[in-house]
């Protein structure tokens, strides 16, 4: 049997998943990474993306919109918002993209740095492409 580690996925409003898993693919801010048991301790921020959890009972996927992951003895992902992939419909995603776009507009209006906000929009749309939900 493959080695397992403790994994918790929590959002501010509730805890989505807690259990032992064999590996988790994390959409880190500097690129995707896969956390496996006995990984070196890391703290990383997340970009909007897909969290792929490989457990004993198969693969579960979640869409997260940001937050951070703490990889120590176990893995805790603290997501700003996290939804099971099946719950992400065109409607939900459009809402998220619109939100990101609105944030971009605000930043533009205030002559702030648009890079981060623009990346957020691009990331959100990329999430859509990856899970086969298209947003214009």
């Amino acid at each position, binding site marked *: 049997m493959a080695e397992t580690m403790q994994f*918790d996925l*929590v*959002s*501010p*409003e*509730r*805890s989505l998943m807690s259990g032992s898993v064999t590996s988790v693919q994390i959409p*880190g*801010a*500097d690129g995707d*990474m896969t956390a496996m048991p006995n990984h*070196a*301790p*890391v*703290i*990383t*921020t997340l970009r909007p993306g897909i969290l792929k959890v490989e457990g004993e009972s198969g693969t579960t996927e979640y869409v997260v919109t940001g*937050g*951070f992951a*703490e990889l*120590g*003895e176990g893995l*805790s992902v*603290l997501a*700003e*918002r996290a939804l099971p992939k099946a719950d992400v419909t065109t409607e939900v995603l459009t809402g998220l993209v619109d939100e990101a776009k609105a944030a971009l507009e605000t930043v533009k209006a205030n002559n702030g740095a648009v890079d981060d906000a623009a990346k957020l929009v691009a990331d959100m749309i990329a999430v859509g492409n990856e899970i086969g939900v298209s947003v214009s």
Partner: protein
Amino acid sequence: MPNLKDLKTRIESVKSTRKITKAMQMVAAAKLRRAQDAAEQARPYTERFNAVLGALAASVGGSDSAPKLLSGTGSDQTHLLVVMTAERGLCGGFNSNIAKLARIKAAELIAAGKTVKILTVGKKGRDAIKRDFGDHFVGHVDMSEVKNVAYSDAQGVAKDVLERFDAGEFDVATIFYSKFVNVVSQIPTAQQIIPADFDAPEEDGATTLYDYEPDEEAILADLLPRGVATQIFSALLENGASEQGARMSAMDNATRNAGDMIDRLTIEFNRSRQAVITNELIEIISGAEAL
């Protein structure tokens, strides 16, 4: 002697009041359970968050490049008091206790020569403080449309606070809310959120050394604003549970008082009725005797 009919109407009116308070108590009990659940669900996130942030803050906090949200602006001249209360009354001392704590703090700061700005969340707190410190108000967040507190509500408040901070409107921010202990006891609490105030992590040498991706400072800059939102969120949840708890015990009291009052009035009613009957009998008897 009180009129029999008046007494009867009073008893009826107290009875219907009792029905209302009883219903409110039951509604509050149901809502309390939901609010407690919500607070419970949010706890793991808040705990982890604070642990990570605390560890990060401890390792970066000493350096000069630490973000202002953590190290402060270097002055404590202007204070922002975020007073979080309910949108509704009829919940015992809940709103007034929070308002009282905020008033005491505001008076203290003003006496010390500081500038005080007040941001109110929830209508009742604003009404309670308006008379004394109305000219210190800088804003109000309306929560009357919010049924169940969501994280996005806290983000809204946090955004408001952070924008003011970035604009240099204040140096220190404190939130006022009520901590839920149990149904009969809620403790009004003041908590400083900017600059961030963490319990120092235990220095037992067993702390894990983390790699940071991107670097520590970037993570900290990303996390601190979220930390403000998280703290406000947990305060709002505590407040929600406290409000329902306070309302439940207040309504329980009211129901009991109404019951006592009904008993008293009923006795008075019966006595008066008896007196009327006795009177009539005396009249009849003395009338018969006179013949």
